[in-house]
């Protein structure tokens, strides 16, 4: 061996700090997405409703009644685009997803979803049969959720300028007078309930894309949650907040909650339900289920004294069978999510930086 190496003088380079183009990571639902919203969208478009950054906007329509300060009916309004590949996957397809996603964003705001619109961007050459299947499955999903698709638009782009089909759905729903859910409402002592197993959708999609096979077919959890949320609110009007952990997974949903409510979240790893297949796939691909997308799950924050009642009500519903208390709201470490690991040590669960990347080894 030659002379000893002088480590102390060694340094690391300073790489790029700003991206000149939009990266895929800007759509990951993690920090890069939050950056985009804070730096590009809110400065131009921010207002008192948008800047709340809830999953849905809640606005009042009609004149404010004199004297008692009450407003007219409250409308929840939301929009979402769907760009999934492959278009058809175990447990669903882009059409069902486009209905469920928007219905769920309304439902977790406590609203009763009523009407949807759908805009289609079709790539020249998309097989007509595929389009028919997608549209039929949208109708079925609307029927199941009890919503009507009442407005639509279609554009076609040149071959190679789109990825077969992109769908944007918007939806409106009515918020019952006594329901006031908000991401800012969590209080220390509240319990956090997850409605079922984590990561099914993301891993189902990824296993098709990567050709990973399991003994049983892993299906996406794509589902409309408005039946579940209705049952939950009927049983337990004291629910503070609900979120559906889609892109960015549970970690983004809880970090947003911790920041907006200025509280800490304490999770217990062994309480979090994860399917064996999902767990195994995550191990193989070097991913973490806390960051994987879900399309038919929600988290609810509820005062401690009502948690058991809510949990029982959720477990009676088919979409809440595996519901579990996964942690609680604490006054320590505001803005942070901390998880007690299986062997007892603690770790901070941060938001995803960009895309979740498979590790080398």
């Amino acid at each position, binding site marked *: 061996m030659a002379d*000893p190496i002088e*480590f102390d003088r060694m340094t690391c380079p300073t790489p790029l*700090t700003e991206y000149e183009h939009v990266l895929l990571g800007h759509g990951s639902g993690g920090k*890069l997405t939050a950056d985009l919203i804070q730096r590009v969208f809110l400065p131009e478009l921010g207002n008192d409703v948008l800047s709340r950054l809830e999953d849905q906007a809640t606005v009042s329509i009609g004149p404010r009644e004199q004297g008692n300060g009450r407003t007219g009916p409250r409308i929840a309004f939301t929009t979402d685009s769907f760009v999934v590949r492959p278009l058809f996957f175990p447990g669903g397809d882009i059409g069902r997803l486009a209905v469920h996603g928007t219905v769920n964003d309304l439902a977790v705001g406590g609203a009763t979803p009523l009407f949807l619109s759908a805009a289609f961007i079709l790539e020249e050459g998309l097989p007509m049969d595929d389009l028919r299947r997608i549209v039929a499955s949208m109708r079925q999903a609307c029927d199941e959720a009890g919503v009507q698709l009442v407005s639509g638009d279609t554009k076609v782009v040149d071959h190679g300028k789109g990825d077969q089909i992109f769908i944007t759905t918007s939806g409106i729903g009515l918020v019952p007078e006594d329901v006031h859910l908000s991401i800012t409402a969590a209080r220390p002592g509240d319990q956090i309930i997850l409605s079922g197993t984590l990561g099914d959708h993301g891993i189902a999609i990824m296993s098709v894309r990567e050709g990973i096979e399991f003994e049983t077919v892993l299906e996406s959890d794509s589902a409309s949650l408005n039946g579940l949320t209705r049952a939950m609110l009927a049983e337990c009007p004291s629910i503070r907040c609900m979120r559906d952990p889609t892109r960015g997974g549970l970690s983004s949903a809880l970090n947003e909650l911790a920041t907006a409510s200025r509280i800490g979240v304490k999770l217990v790893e062994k309480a979090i339900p994860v399917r064996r297949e999902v767990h195994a796939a995550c191990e193989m691909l070097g991913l973490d289920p806390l960051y994987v997308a879900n399309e038919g799950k929600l988290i609810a924050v509820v005062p401690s004294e009502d948690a058991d009642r809510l949990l029982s009500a959720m477990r009676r519903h088919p979409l809440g069978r595996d519901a579990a208390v996964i942690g609680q709201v604490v006054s320590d*470490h505001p803005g942070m999510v901390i998880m007690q690991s*299986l*062997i007892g040590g603690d770790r901070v669960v941060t938001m995803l930086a960009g895309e979740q*990347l498979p590790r080398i080894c």
Partner: protein
Amino acid sequence: MNYQEEYRDPVPAKKLQQAIASVTTRPWTIMEVCGGQTHTIVKYGIDELLPPKVELVHGPGCPVCVTPLELIDKAVAIASRPDVIFCSFGDMLRVPGSRRDLFAVKAAGGDVRIVYSPLDCLKIAEKYPDRTVVFFAVGFETTSPPNAMAVWQAKKRGLKNFAVLVSHVLVPPAMTAILSSPNNRVQGFLGAGHVCTVMGFEEYEPLAERFGIPIVVTGFEPLDLLEGIYRCVCMLEEGRHGVDNQYARAVRREGNRPARNLVREVFEVTDRKWRGIGTIPQSGFRLRPEYAEFDAESRFSVQQLAVLESNECISGLILQGLRKPHQCPAFGKSCTPERPLGATMVSSEGACAAYYNYGRFRQAETVHASR
């Protein structure tokens, strides 16, 4: 039995934790070489479970972190070519070169793809005969057999439109460099289990002998690490040196012979530059002359690309265990996983990213603030 949960069981973990505490009488500094082990340690909070006398330092065993800047720049240059499909393991895409990372190349129109196996690149090459498929062959000994296999198969099949950008590094020379450093504090090593699955641990025996240290080949689950630490502390306390194998369910002394033979067929040992450390003699692989036609550096004439490294971060000190990530003034402030100043913050296996993601620095801050 599913080979996961039984190695994450809190009951034996507690027993091992107590066993470590009861055998420890003096302060010891142990380095885990491999980034995967660093990841497990911080993910499960293992360092918190150890007695204060046992200090873990995180070694240079993250392939992403130690890949030198100019190689990233070469990758960026090659990936930017319209005639190239550039394939890589996922976490190399965010590693910054001197100006751009591969994500930025992709965003600007380059065909950059994430693959899970280098053999996938051969399928892509057969599908796109008019373009050259380049695989970024980075990693320690662990990833060298599949990378060697891809090159070997390409030659066998006569694939002309496939090449590899090789940046393979080796663990034993890095350990030697650390132990030879005048500032070395490391008294014992946890050997990198997956590296040894391929290479065995014969080559670590002379190292243990020469420097009089214990090396415990260790796995990646929480119980593996606790047991590896326990064995290492026992050897240190008893004043023994030598190689012990905690990861016997995967590692044999001679390693995986067919894999080693294949690696030897395709690669030869060469000097390599390590990001944050510098050139370490005989510390990496390059393609043998018989396989030179698959060398992307010569095919695309990027050998001469040279770049300057700046003086922002202290990852050189971190990679040899002289500093902890949160002791860097930039840590968590100007340097975060989204805006990394150094490679150790880029990869999820890097010590800084592991500290950041699993919150050591924030906890430290909280404690500090509450005082």
